[in-house]
């Protein structure tokens, strides 16, 4: 059996979550890696949408940025940035929004704006919102992918850049948000899903070789663990080959 890194496990697990024939609004970085891995593997009819206006992009390598010509050259259609947000994202046409995060809290709220309690004098100034607030609001569901550690996985985000489940079950409905919000968080240690009763993120699967304690320690809140905790199947040879080919082609 081939060795693999925890980052590879994370990308593979994230890719598997994307069903064939669905559409996915993809951010650059980990989400783009996972989405392209899915399209070259089990989901050849996955439609990738990039916020630069590329609908149905089929890149042969991982794009360096959302402005990569490879995305435009391989897309079914290239539209303007206002159009991708207004005509394609906003009406809820897109199945999955695939996001990264700097901070994520136990109700799946995302922070990519500032670290620290004072917006005006932040400890760390992060890049900001980008497309995420409306991706998190409008896609039918949202997957989040990020490496797990207590600085990233916090009780409450310092700034709600993108709304997840707010302060719990029912908050999205109260605000009239159309999509289901974050339904899956993929990390380098396992998978988390909102509890059906409370919407609190709960550990539902461990990656092979990871212990529950490890995940609890890497989480900044008192992590709940599902009663029927599962284990993610290890990456297959085929998955690893595709992922490594993609990475190589993009180096």
């Amino acid at each position, binding site marked *: 059996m081939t060795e693999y890194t925890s980052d590879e496990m994370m990308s593979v697990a994230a890719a598997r979550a994307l069903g064939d024939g669905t559409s996915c609004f993809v951010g*650059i*970085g980990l989400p783009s890696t996972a989405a392209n891995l899915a399209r070259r593997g089990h989901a050849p009819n996955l439609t990738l949408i990039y*916020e*630069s*206006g*590329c609908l149905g992009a089929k890149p042969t390598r991982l794009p*360096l*940025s*959302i*402005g*990569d*010509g490879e*995305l*435009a050259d391989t897309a079914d259609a*290239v539209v*303007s*940035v*206002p159009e991708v*947000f*207004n005509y394609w*994202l*906003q009406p809820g046409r897109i199945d999955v929004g695939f996001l990264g995060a700097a901070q994520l809290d136990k109700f799946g709220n995302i922070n990519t*704006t500032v670290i620290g309690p004072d*917006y005006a*004098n*932040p400890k*760390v*100034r*992060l*890049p*900001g*919102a*980008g*497309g*995420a*607030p*409306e991706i998190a*609001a*409008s896609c039918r569901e949202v997957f989040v992918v990020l490496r797990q550690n207590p600085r990233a996985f916090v009780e409450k985000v310092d*700034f*709600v*850049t*993108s*709304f997840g489940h*707010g302060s719990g079950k029912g*908050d*999205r409905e109260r*605000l*009239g*948000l159309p999509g289901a919000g974050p339904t899956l968080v993929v990390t380098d240690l396992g998978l988390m899903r909102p509890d059906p009763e409370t919407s609190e993120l709960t550990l539902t699967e461990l990656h092979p070789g990871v212990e529950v304690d490890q995940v609890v320690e890497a989480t900044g809140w008192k992590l709940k663990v599902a009663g029927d905790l599962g284990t993610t199947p290890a990456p297959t040879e085929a998955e690893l080959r595709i992922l490594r080919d993609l990475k190589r082609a993009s180096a």
Partner: protein
Amino acid sequence: MAELLSLKEAVARLVHDGDTVALEGFTHLIPVAAGHEIIRQRRTGLTLVRMTPDIVYDQLIGAGCASKLIFSWGGNPGVGSLHRFRDAVQYEWPVPLEIEEHSHAGMANRYVAGASGLPFAVLRGYTGTDLPSRTDTIKPITCPFTGEQLAAVPALNPDVTIVHAQRADRAGNVQIWGITGVQKEAVLAAKRSLVTVEEVVDELEPRPGAIVLPSWAVTAVAEVPGGASPSYAAGYYERDNDAYQAWDAIGRDRESFTRWLDELTGVKA
């Protein structure tokens, strides 16, 4: 009708201290050379506008040209953070930088409203986020037919918008292809506009995916081959990724940045 000018003259005539200036581009066709010319001409007090401020905005901010930034995502795309931007926000170096922060959807719609001659735009946006509490330019609005509440954002109408395009003809008609981003809206929203182009040609041959900005909608065109480097210019060059990586080290501390700036502006050590 657009005038054909040198970059130096175009920036001198179109960009003034204190102006609101948008240099747009969505990681493709970034008007980098024009940004450097603004630094060389030592403009100050600018309100810089851009959805995705990247290296050239980091440079403008580090050089002290800007007193305010209106934006939705500031970073070195695919690399990391903008250290001059961080230094300005966190430590007011070299001058304080006020920020007005939106989402991409909000910024795109602000340009659309500006291009459309409307005072505001409506979107489903910002719901549940902390942005409206930090940004005055997001307000609720109620649908007069359904009673539903949505978000309103005011139009962006820069004093001058600068974009980079592949081609213009001698009459000043501009052709852009590939990822065209929000460039048309940013130009049409502005009081004045400058388009730097890879080349001026006799005739704009129609091509798939290309849009044309008619000459009468543009103030000035400047021929600046390589004017978008190190970003992509579809049909001309790929992104120089090493330059993006290298910027991370240069931008990271004030001393190395100052050396870079002195070199750009021709100051001898």
